[in-house]
């Protein structure tokens, strides 16, 4: 009787989810705290900043450039009806700094770096490297997980700043030389309507939260993956899907809290 199975199934799902969430939170706390462990290696952290950040840079720059250009085009066609194209600079800058910069950076980061992170930790588990570390009395949380979590927190805001800047520049290239908006007005309107603490720093705070959440989900999915080839594969998919949805949901909450 499928109908009668529905309610106990729902209860089962909830009961299974709550402890999993608890374990994942404990994993995050221990992972972050492991920075003080003697097995934490600064060299590993640098290696991860390189792998997660520097190697994602080209993707971010290309994505930001096109995002800015499209924003300028669409904004222009919406504003030109009201003769308000002087507000185009403000529109491009505020959209990028407040929403598109942090969110797109985090989504691309989840796809480019988060998936790789899950697959890497998952394979380590499948090939019993994590158990081997435990056997040698090396804490895998300190050696493997902590550098990746901290690297994610450091890297995403930096990528976001670069994304914002390249996006604004892309918007400028379309608005001023191509669509003929006045360059002075473009920058002046932008400067008088963008605030450093309200827009730029709030955007970066968002990016920081997203960096933490995306690397947390990616590392946890890898760590909790079934130690088989299939398990690692499905963990990687879950990592990207969960991280993307978490970013979008968290963005709504942060926007409601930060911008009043």
């Amino acid at each position, binding site marked *: 009787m499928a109908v009668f199975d529905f309610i106990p199934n729902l209860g089962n799902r909830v009961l299974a989810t709550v402890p999993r969430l608890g374990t994942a939170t404990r994993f995050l706390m221990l992972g972050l705290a492991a920075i003080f462990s003697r097995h934490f290696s600064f*060299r590993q952290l*640098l*290696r991860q*900043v*390189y792998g997660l*950040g*520097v190697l994602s*840079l080209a993707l971010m720059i290309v994505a930001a450039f096109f995002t800015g250009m499209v924003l300028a085009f669409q904004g222009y066609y919406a504003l030109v009806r*009201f*003769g*308000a194209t*002087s*507000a185009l600079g403000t529109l491009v*800058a505020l959209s990028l*700094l407040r929403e598109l910069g942090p969110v797109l950076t985090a989504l691309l980061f989840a796809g480019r770096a988060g998936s790789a992170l899950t697959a890497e930790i998952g394979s380590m588990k499948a090939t019993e490297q994590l158990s081997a570390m435990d056997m040698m009395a090396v804490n895998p949380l300190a050696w493997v997980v902590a550098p990746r979590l901290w690297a994610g927190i450091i890297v995403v*805001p*930096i*990528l976001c*700043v*670069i994304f*914002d*800047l390249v996006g*604004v520049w892309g918007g400028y290239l379309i608005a001023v030389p191509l669509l003929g908006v006045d360059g002075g*007005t473009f*920058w002046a*309107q*932008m*400067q*008088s*309507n*963008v*605030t*450093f603490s309200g*827009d*730029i720093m709030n955007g*970066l705070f968002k990016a920081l939260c997203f960096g933490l959440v995306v690397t947390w989900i990616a590392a946890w999915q890898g760590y909790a993956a079934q130690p088989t080839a299939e398990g690692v594969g499905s963990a990687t998919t879950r990592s990207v899907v969960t991280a993307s949805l978490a970013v979008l949901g968290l963005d709504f909450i942060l926007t409601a809290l930060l911008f009043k």
Partner: protein
Amino acid sequence: MERRAVDWWVGLFVLLGIAALVVLATRVGNLSGFAFSNGYTLSANFSNVGSLKVRSPVKIGGVSVGEVTQIRVDPKTFMAKVTMRIDPQLKLPVDTGASIYTEGLLGEQFIALQPGGLPQDLKPGGTITMTQSAVNLDQLIGQMIFSKASSGK
């Protein structure tokens, strides 16, 4: 990857991030406004400041020479008292006038100063006496409608 190369790239990456933040803050945000932070202050009384805001620009001939630092109502005269900070290199004559204009039809409002010709200069903290308030679009439209209606008779 060799150790030195990783260090080098990570350092460059962080520097790039800091540089981008500085450019964002000065070029996109309005942190560059502190260029006038060591200027002297002047005030002017208007009957209506429209949507003038703190940090709105003060211009002479379209060139930005300062910014509005404070707007409040004078408790005695009930006029809007606007305090602004002006570039210290500019000495303005005492018969300088101040008007509130709008940049374009829907743009932001700013104060335009028209320097006079008297030899005495305004002292820091001085008051500009000749002022022209913000144009109230609603009022103008109302006036135009009424004058059209009365002339149509």
